[in-house]
């Protein structure tokens, strides 16, 4: 790092001064300016950026909400009502935060669907996928704890039901539950620690997002064809092309989320949570947030307490090993005529599970939940590992540029992708 040439990298002398001492300017240039994106990426590739922006919005709105929130069982509910009625624009902050959480999950679910459909989790991006599942887990934990803070009936009983899941663990379960709660029931100790964790976990998520992005930048982004970048002609620079594309996606997203925040802020809220928490009265029907409901449906589909809990945690844990369950060499479902439909059915099934997870677990709903549960695990344990034996993938295009030439018909067989193991 010697010589004056380093000093004169940029026109602006202040940038040069920074760069010489901390090469952060060139890092951002490399990762967010020159970074080559496959030129065939569609708008599904904007959802990573949308998720990052939503995370930042959640952190900012959350910090300002925390300035007016009181984490005490006697005051929490009233402090939230005060935010809604008396704090300047408090209603806006809270509706941004509560609906932002729901939209964070919508965006992340689309992002995950993108990864599953186009095989983004496959070699060499397995660790990337695992980091993503960690982010998803942290999001679920944060969302759950955040939902407890307003201290309404759903907050209280949701917390009671979820923490009781741990009591299903043999021998240590009851002690573990009391340790988690800091009391014999959900109480002030619980509310306090949930607030502390709800405040800090999003920053942990931010850190893992940093790793997630750094990891994808090592081998470059996947693309709808699922084939590797072969030359510079296959790519466009991140700036301005992708930045502009993502900016348009953010605008459209902003219109949609604003419509909900301003015209239907309680569309995704449960009315029972506007009743203060009462430890002596359980609501007739405990409903989780829709974005966690698929797992709640799995929990209730099993008539055995420990079995339900194990399957519920298993349904999340199985996501971690998806890169090793899928034995097909072809990444993108565009070239997988059979698996493609199973992936789409997986997502339809996931939302059906979510739907029945919000309804009483009886009769037809219970039956649907059980069928959905069987498909959920069947997809991961039977379809994904074995489908490639009966599936003949379409021939892959030679390179990304060939996608635009109508190529691919007479191009190579999938074994051309030798580096996919």
């Amino acid at each position, binding site marked *: 790092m010697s010589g004056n040439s380093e000093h004169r990298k940029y026109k602006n002398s202040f940038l040069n001064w920074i760069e010489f001492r901390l090469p952060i300017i060139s890092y951002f240039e490399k990762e967010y300016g020159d970074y080559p994106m496959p030129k065939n990426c569609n708008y599904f590739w904007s959802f990573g950026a949308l998720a990052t922006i939503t995370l930042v919005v959640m952190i900012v709105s959350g910090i300002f909400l925390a300035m007016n929130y009181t984490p005490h069982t006697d005051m929490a509910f009233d402090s939230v009502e005060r935010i809604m009625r008396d704090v300047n624009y408090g209603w806006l902050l809270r509706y941004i935060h509560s609906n932002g959480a729901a939209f964070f999950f919508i965006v992340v679910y689309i992002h995950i669907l993108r990864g599953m459909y186009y095989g983004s989790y496959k070699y060499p991006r397995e660790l990337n996928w695992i980091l993503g599942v960690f982010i998803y887990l942290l999001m679920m934990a944060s969302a759950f704890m955040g939902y407890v803070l307003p201290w309404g009936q759903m907050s209280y009983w949701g917390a009671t039901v979820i923490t*009781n899941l741990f009591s299903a663990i043999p021998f240590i379960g009851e002690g573990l539950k009391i340790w988690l709660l800091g009391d*014999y029931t959900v*109480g002030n100790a619980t509310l306090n620690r949930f607030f502390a964790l709800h405040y800090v976990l999003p920053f942990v998520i931010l850190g893992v997002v940093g790793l997630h992005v750094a990891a994808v930048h090592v081998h470059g982004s996947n693309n709808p064809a699922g084939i590797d970048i072969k030359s510079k002609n296959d790519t466009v620079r991140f700036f301005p092309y992708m930045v502009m594309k993502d900016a348009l996606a953010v605008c459209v997203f902003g219109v949609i989320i604003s419509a909900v925040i301003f015209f239907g802020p309680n569309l995704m809220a449960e009315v029972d949570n506007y009743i203060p928490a009462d430890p002596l009265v359980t609501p007739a029907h405990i409903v989780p947030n829709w974005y966690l409901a698929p797992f709640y449906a799995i929990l209730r589909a099993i008539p055995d307490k*420990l079995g339900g809990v194990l399957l519920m945690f298993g349904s999340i844990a199985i996501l971690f090993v998806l890169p090793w369950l899928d034995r097909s060499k072809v990444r993108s479902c565009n070239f997988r005529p059979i698996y493609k439909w199973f992936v789409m059915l997986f997502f339809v099934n996931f939302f059906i599970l979510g739907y029945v997870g919000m309804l009483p677990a009886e009769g037809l709903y219970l039956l649907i939940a059980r069928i959905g549960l069987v498909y959920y695990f069947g997809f991961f344990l039977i379809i994904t590992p074995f489908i490639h034996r009966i599936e003949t993938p379409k021939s892959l295009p030679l390179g990304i540029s060939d996608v635009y030439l109508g190529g691919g018909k007479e191009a190579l067989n999938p074994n051309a992708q030798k580096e996919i193991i």
Partner: protein
Amino acid sequence: MAENPNNKRRDFLQLSTISIGALGTAAFIWPFLSSMNPAEDTLALGTTEVDISSIEEGQSITVKWRGKPVFIRKRTKEEIEEAKEVNFTDLIDPEQDIDRVKKEEWLVLIGVCTHLGCVPLGQKLTDNKGEYNGWYCPCHGSHYDTSGRIRKGPAPNNLPVPPYSFLNDTTIKIG
């Protein structure tokens, strides 16, 4: 290098330094974990005294003990009969009615469903008492009988009986 006798000494020193450091750090985790357990003042709220003189036969009251609802029910003759008649060995969580009460007419239970912690219905006369005339948990559909034993549904255990004693004929001390 491998023959150098100093290397063995170095390996030992390195290993023991790392081990002691790791042990020390690990030991410091304990106070942090322990701080999350119920505090002394939480543990101190251990007992509640309840006046039961005003409860009529067939009535129940709900009192709070350690933040949880406790059901105190003065059972009717029929309810006691129902609870005794059952062949207890066939139950999900086999327990005799006689082992769950101190005085036959007084049933004292922790009113928290053993499935996922909801409060079962059945305390009010108008409540749904389930198929076994005891309590019914609306969350996931567990049915309890007139002795608070689980009879149907996902709950694994009977409603637990808290530690209690009769101070005199009209007062119960719970805890």
